[in-house]
Structure formats: C-alpha cells, structure tokens
C-alpha cells in the first residue's frame, strides 16, 4: 500500500483545495479537496455526472476553476492553458489525428516543441515499442483496432514524459478480455516508469484492481478517499456502500436487532453465509430468518436476494456449490458475522 500522501515531506503531484466548477446551475465540482502522491496510481470513481471527469479536465487545463486552488507538483496552474502544463491526457475516444500516421501522431508533441526530425522519430519508435506497437509507425489510425489505437494514444502521451498522466475512461471502449490485459499492462507501465497516473472510471472493478488509492465522487464532491480495500470494506457512506460493490445497507434499528451497535451499517453480500434450518449460529454470528426472492448464478457464486421478516431486502453472495437446492420462496437463515457489519459515518 502506498503511504498517505498529504503528511509526507514530498510535494503532492496534484493538489486541489476547495475547487469549484459550475456549469450554469450544475455543480460539476463543488468544493473538491484532494492530494495525489507522486508515483501514485490514483482512481477517480463515480457515476456519470458525479464530477470526476470535470476534475480530470481541471488538471489538464481544459476547464478553469470558478473558485479554489490547483497545484501540479507545487506549481499553481490556475489560468495556465493545457499546452503550458506538464501533464498529458489519454482521451476516452483516443483523439488520434486522422491525417497523420501512427508515428507522426506519437511524435506530434515533440514536433510542436521543436524537437528535430531524427530525434523525434527515434523517441516515437521507442514509445511505440513500450506499448508493443513497434513497426506500426507508418500505419494510419483508421487501419488500427480499438486496442491498438488505445496504445497509440498512450504512447503519444508517454513520449513527452509527463509529470502526471491523465486517463479518461481509458478502457471503456475495449472488450472484456482486452480490458483485463490493458489493466495489467497499464499498471506495469506505471510501475516501470514511476509516473503519477490519474484515471477516471465509472467501473468500480477497474478502480479497485488498478489503483493505489480510489476517490469516490458523488454530486461534485469526493465522498471517500482511500486504498481500494478500505473503500470496499469500510464504505464511509450509504452511497459508497451501494456504488462500490453493491453492499447491503442496514438501518440503525436493523443493526441493533442483530446485536450490533445501533448505527447504520454496510454489509458485503459475500460476508453472508447460509445456515441450515436447524443449524446453530456460532459465536459472533447472528442468524437472520429470511425468504428467498431471487437467485442468480454468477459463476463462482450465487447471488441470493432475500427478504427478512420485517421486509428488508438483503443480498448474499454464497459459493455456488453450497446453494444448489435454494430457490425462490425457500426459507433460509442468513449467517451474518457481526464483525462484517461496518458502521457508516455519513448518511449521504
């Protein structure tokens, strides 16, 4: 786990202090504070319209804050246009220049900086090699597959050795297999180059598997920042519990009824087990009578949606082999380890 950034002596790669950006009545960023550590793989996770993309564009310079302060490696960047910032972006639609070859696309940033032809061709070749596209220099973007275009976009940004690489839903347009490949590769590249990556996604799986830390956005604000395990295991609010991994949320009374402290709490479906009708719950595990309303097979687990006696819906993810005979209408007893109940601070 990467150390928490703010307290360390090093200057944050990206720092937001009370950043506000409104579009008319829409508060895209509504007082965002964050600090991304140098060398960190930082994910901004949230549903569409939560402000994560606006924050990325604020770092890139495509948007300027209405209020607040933004620093990149200690340098104040408010008012600086994108071309004066030491950050580069991999765009969601890749934004490759259709009239230029792959090599020219990658060399574009060097060209506008006045790097000589031979030198920029050498650097472009090197960058393309880095993303495993060596030898593709003369192709046109239109001749490439989606995955290859993504790699060109990556090479084009990396060739400039940015202080921070911004990735806007970088894997959104790829199919599942490619996406998993690219996740591993991106992570490897980031580690090898030691660069700071800030990436935006609405896919919680992607955020959890790639990032050192995740910031969860909702309605223009960051509702929780932390390492993936922390965000997943101990969601700070109802929203985080629901958005990251679809946790059950118990009200204070329901928690109390199970013998836990009387506070709203989240409960991950996979923490819940089933006890046979006559079985006895071990110490520290509460048994909860419920009726099955739906069962869906998901490969390694079955997701069993149940309704408790007082009408509350609770989902459990149970290893598929243990639940062969469970069907809708069946009475079950849910085993809820009290330690798995995580009390939440906010109600947001």
């Amino acid at each position, binding site marked *: 786990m990467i150390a928490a950034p703010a307290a360390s002596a090093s200057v944050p790669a990206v720092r937001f202090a009370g950043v506000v950006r409104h579009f008319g009545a829409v508060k895209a960023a509504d007082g965002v504070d964050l600090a991304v550590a140098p060398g960190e793989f930082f994910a901004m996770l949230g549903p569409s319209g939560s402000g994560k993309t606006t924050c990325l564009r604020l770092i*890139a310079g495509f948007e300027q804050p209405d209020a607040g302060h933004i620093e990149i490696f200690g340098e104040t960047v408010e008012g600086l246009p994108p*071309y004066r910032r030491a950050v580069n972006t991999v765009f969601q*639609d890749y934004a490759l220049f259709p*009239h230029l070859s792959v090599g020219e696309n990658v060399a*574009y940033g060097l060209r506008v900086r006045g790097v000589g032809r031979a030198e920029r061709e050498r650097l472009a070749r090197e960058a393309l090699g880095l993303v495993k596209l060596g030898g593709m220099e003369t192709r046109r973007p239109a001749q490439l597959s989606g995955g290859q275009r993504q790699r060109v976009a990556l090479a084009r940004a990396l060739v400039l050795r940015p202080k921070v690489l911004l990735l806007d839903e970088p894997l959104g347009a790829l199919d599942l297999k490619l996406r998993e490949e690219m996740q591993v590769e991106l992570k490897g590249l980031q580690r090898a180059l030691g660069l700071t990556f800030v990436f935006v996604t609405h896919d919680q799986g992607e955020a959890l598997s790639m990032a050192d830390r995740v910031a969860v956005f909702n309605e223009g604000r960051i509702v929780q920042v932390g390492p993936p395990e922390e965000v997943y295991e101990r969601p700070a609010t109802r929203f985080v519990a629901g958005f990251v991994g679809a946790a059950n949320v118990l009200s204070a009374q329901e928690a109390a009824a199970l013998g836990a402290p009387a506070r709203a709490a989240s409960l991950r479906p996979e923490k819940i087990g089933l006890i046979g009708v006559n079985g006895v719950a071990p110490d520290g595990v509460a048994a909860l009578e419920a009726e099955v309303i739906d069962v869906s097979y998901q490969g390694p687990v079955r997701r069993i949606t149940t309704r408790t006696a007082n009408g509350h819906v609770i989902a459990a993810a149970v290893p598929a082999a243990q639940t062969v005979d469970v069907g809708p209408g069946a009475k079950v007893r849910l085993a809820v380890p009290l330690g798995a109940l995580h009390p939440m601070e906010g109600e947001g």
Partner: protein
Amino acid sequence: MTRASLPLKIAALGGLAFLHVPLVFILLYCFTTEERSYAFPPPGFTLKWFGVVWERADIWQAVGLSLKVACLATAVALVLGTLAAGALARARFFGREPVSLLFVLPIALPGIVTGIALRQAFGLMEIPFSFWTIVLGHATFCIVVVYNNAVARLRRLSPSLIEASMDLGADAFQTFRLVVLPNVGTALLAGGMLAFALSFDEVIVTTFTAGQQSTLPIWMLSELIRPRQRPVTNVVAVLVIAVTFLPILAAYYLTREGEAVAGSGK
C-alpha cells in the same frame, strides 16, 4: 435493381436534352460563317472567330478583370468565411442561430436585392464604384459558400482532436495549422473553387456595383445588342464554360466523400 421503364427513359432523356441542347447550340455557332443572325443549319463552318476573339483587346480586358475579381473575392471569402465558420461551428453563445442565418442570407436573397443594397450603401458612404466595389459585392455571396463548406466539415471534426493537440503542447496557432487546417483543407478548396466560379459569371450584383469596368459577363450582355460579329460571344461563352466548369467539377470530386457542396445553387 429493376430496369427503368421506357417512358421513364424517355423522360430522363428529355430532361437531359432540355438542359444541354442549348449548350450544344452555343458550341455549334462558334463555327458559323454567318455573323448577323443564326440560321439553322449554319451556312458554313469557319474557325475565324477564334482568331477574332484572340485579337480583340476589349475581350481580354474583360477576361482579365473577371479573373482578378474572382481571385480576390475568393481570397476574401476564404479568410472571412473560414474565420466565421471557426467561430460558429462549435461555440455556444446567445444569438448564435440568428448570426449563422445572417451569414447564409446573402445567398438566399435575390441578387438584385444584394446589388441594389450594396449600390445604395456605397453611394451613401460616398465610395466611388470601382474594381474594389465589384470585389466587395462578389465577396458577399462567396463568403457564404466557403462558410457553408467549412462549417459542415468543422462540425464533423471531433472536438477532442483540438483538445488533444493543446494537451500535447501546441498553442492555438499550431493547432490550427497542424490539425484543423489539414482536416478542413479539402472543404476550403471546394468552397473556394465554387466561390471562384460564382464570381466569374456573376451579372446582377456586378451591374449594380461596377463603375466603368466591364467584367466578362457584362461584356457579353452588351455585345448581344450589337448586330455584327455575333459568333464572337459564342466563342467567349465556350471559354467561360471551360473556366467555370472545371473548378465546379473539381469541387464536386473533392467533397463527394464528405458532405454535399452547400450553397451551389446561386
């Protein structure tokens, strides 16, 4: 594909003939020996009118003036039309739609209205009618053609390309030169050629904005009244067809894969 029925074929042929037979007559009477009236069939064939055209200074003056006007009007239109398109293609601001309508209006207005409006405006501002007033008059509708072509292409250009260019370190000027221009270049070329062709054969606006100068179309109009050397106008007409047809054809091929050449109807 079903085959066209016979009546349909006849109708299509009739339509084509209606459009093009007059042009055949223009060509035919370039070579007639009779100079006062056109009789059919022509009494004899000669190439002497080409020689006559070659030697007449007034024709070459008119051709030269028309070419100069068309070039300048096209140049003005390329600069102003592209700038206007750049401003209006993507920006959102209050009154954007009315403004873009105002840009296209000159091509929808009858030329006679444009002409009289310009004439009165020049008169009120006490600008003497000259070569430059003709250029300005032509530029009013040439801008529309360039604007229409450029705006259509700019709207298809992904906005993230411009952002990507800026992100990679290019300032606004470099982005325009290295990304925008290469992507709208053919649209500008097509718009420019069309503008050139429109200007080259313009009569109405020219009549109202010219001083003593006569452009080629004006010269032809005045020539029709004269009884002698009639085939000379035919020879010149054929030259005009050649000069205006080629750029229009080129514009058509350049934009065929893209959008239609908007505003080609003037």
